[in-house]
């Protein structure tokens, strides 16, 4: 291959990448743009790239709207996501360590049990799950929204894979110091597991924040709506107030976008681990 050809080739590749990058950024740009325009500007026939006067007041107005409980939606989502992440990651991490490290005769059977549950397609199970949750009276309750989500077979398995490669020397050192397995986990394994905790924790947080079907089914009362259900009601409303809808959507996306941006290295590692290793 000649040098010019190669140069041409890499320039072309770069152009293709830039083209796709623009394509991928357009939706986010439109989201931000529309959230800062007036209703009239959004629906105008003439295209504008950016509003002449940015309508920052779209945001405070959004919270003043008595028909859509935005602030409450944020509060609900924040509570659900935080509790889910803290409890789910603690439980999965602990269980994963035990499955990887604590000697127990039937450990393998327990691992198989966890793996089988991982094979159950959870979204498709929402009707049977709803029927049970309704039976125990957990519709429109915090526990109904949160508790079914804190037991996670996948994360448990991921933590197990991670702790399998935990150095045996450290473990032995812990035993010499008279620690039992929980002590080793607490004092030695946990402090070394931060990268994976951050990775799986942020993925769990994003999934919980973005969840739609379960909160829709369980948090039926207006006071139980999460931010996603709130945004969805803009779409199903009789009259769609466009600028408010976009402002709500942008605010709903912002926390997870920032989180992803800041932690992307960890998250990418977490996703990587989930794939093929082990």
């Amino acid at each position, binding site marked *: 291959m000649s040098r010019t050809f190669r140069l041409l080739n890499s320039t072309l590749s770069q152009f293709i990448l830039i083209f796709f*990058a623009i394509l991928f950024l357009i939706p986010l740009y439109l989201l931000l743009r529309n959230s800062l325009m007036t209703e009239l500007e959004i629906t105008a026939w003439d295209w504008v790239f950016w509003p002449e006067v940015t309508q920052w007041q779209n945001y405070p107005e959004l919270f003043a709207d008595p028909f859509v409980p935005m602030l409450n939606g944020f509060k609900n989502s924040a509570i659900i996501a935080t509790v889910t992440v803290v409890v789910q990651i603690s439980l999965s991490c602990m269980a994963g360590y035990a499955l990887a490290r604590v000697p127990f005769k039937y450990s393998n059977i327990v691992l198989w049990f966890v793996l089988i549950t991982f094979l159950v397609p959870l979204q498709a199970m929402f009707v049977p799950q709803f029927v049970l949750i309704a039976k125990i009276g957990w519709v429109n309750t915090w526990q109904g929204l949160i508790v079914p989500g804190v037991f996670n077979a996948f994360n448990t398995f991921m933590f197990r894979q991670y702790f399998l490669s935990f150095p045996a020397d450290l473990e032995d050192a812990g035993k010499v110091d008279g620690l039992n397995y929980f002590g080793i986990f607490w004092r030695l394994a946990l402090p070394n597991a931060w990268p994976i905790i951050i990775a799986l924790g942020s993925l769990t947080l994003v999934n919980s924040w*973005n969840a739609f079907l379960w909160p829709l089914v369980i948090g039926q009362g207006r006071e139980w709506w999460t931010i*996603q259900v709130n945004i969805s009601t803009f779409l199903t409303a009789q009259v769609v107030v466009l600028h408010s*809808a976009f402002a709500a959507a942008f605010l709903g996306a912002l926390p997870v976008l920032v989180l992803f941006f800041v932690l992307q290295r960890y998250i990418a590692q977490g996703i990587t681990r989930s794939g*093929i290793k082990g």
Partner: protein
Amino acid sequence: MAITASAGTTAATANKKRRRKDAIIFWFMVGPVVLGLLFFIFTPIVWGFLVSLHKSRGTVNLEEYVGLANYYNILTDEDYLKSLLFITQFSLFIVPVTYALSLFLAVMVQNAAWGKGVFRTIFFMPTAISYVIAAMIWRMAIFSGLPYGFANWIIWVTAEIEPIAWIGTIRPPWHYMVLVTVRLWLQVGFYMILFIAGMQDIPQEMYEAARVDGAESKWTLFRHITFPLLRNTSIFVLLVNLVHAFQAFAEFYNILGATWTAGGLLSLARPPLLYLYQVAMNQQFYGTGTAGAFILVLIIFVVTVIQSRLTGGLGKEV
């Protein structure tokens, strides 16, 4: 003699004691997750199955035993069958396209002359956005049927094509364009990261060896080294993607949802989960709803088994 024997038994008891202690610690640490999974995944299967054998309309209690009538009803329900057919078509389309695009972007990003990190971030960011928010952007900003929609603006300024009612038209099925692109935008970055990771695992020496053997072009290297060595990643991506596609809900609910009284469009592009939502949540036919859910779960199971058979299954060393 006596001394050794007694020392032996003490060691044995100590051993036994330690093992019991370890078992207690094991259950202390694993117990919560196991009990939780039992209660929130296996109990719904058992209880839900019992409900599916009852009429249970407007109540989640076991009311009026009907045997397998719910299964018969849902399996002869034209709308349900239509939704199963639709999701199969949709998956057959979305899964290969997602696969190809994410692999393509991974290769392009890895071979970029500059800006690798920037491109990776840009393609990965949409993964953070929820289906609801993406649905909002797609329906109200990009594929709005009115001239102010971004897609309509683009086709007008580039080719002077009149505005298209993307979501409202049945023939040609433009709504496919809307539903496929939104899912692509949300998912491709995730699988791209998996492919990039898989590519980083391929030892550089293999490429060097191939170059020594005369393999020059990037395409040859991709076809003979990168692609075959990404086999496990590929199988994983296809499998996860397929299971996800069969459980599509949020973007359909939010993009087509409100138009369903208007055009009957939803009956053309209604995934089974959305149909079950209507049966169980709107009509409160819990017996039929649970029966439909179990059939869907079974189908997903069968499809994944067939797919892993076809691809030869995970875990084989490359």
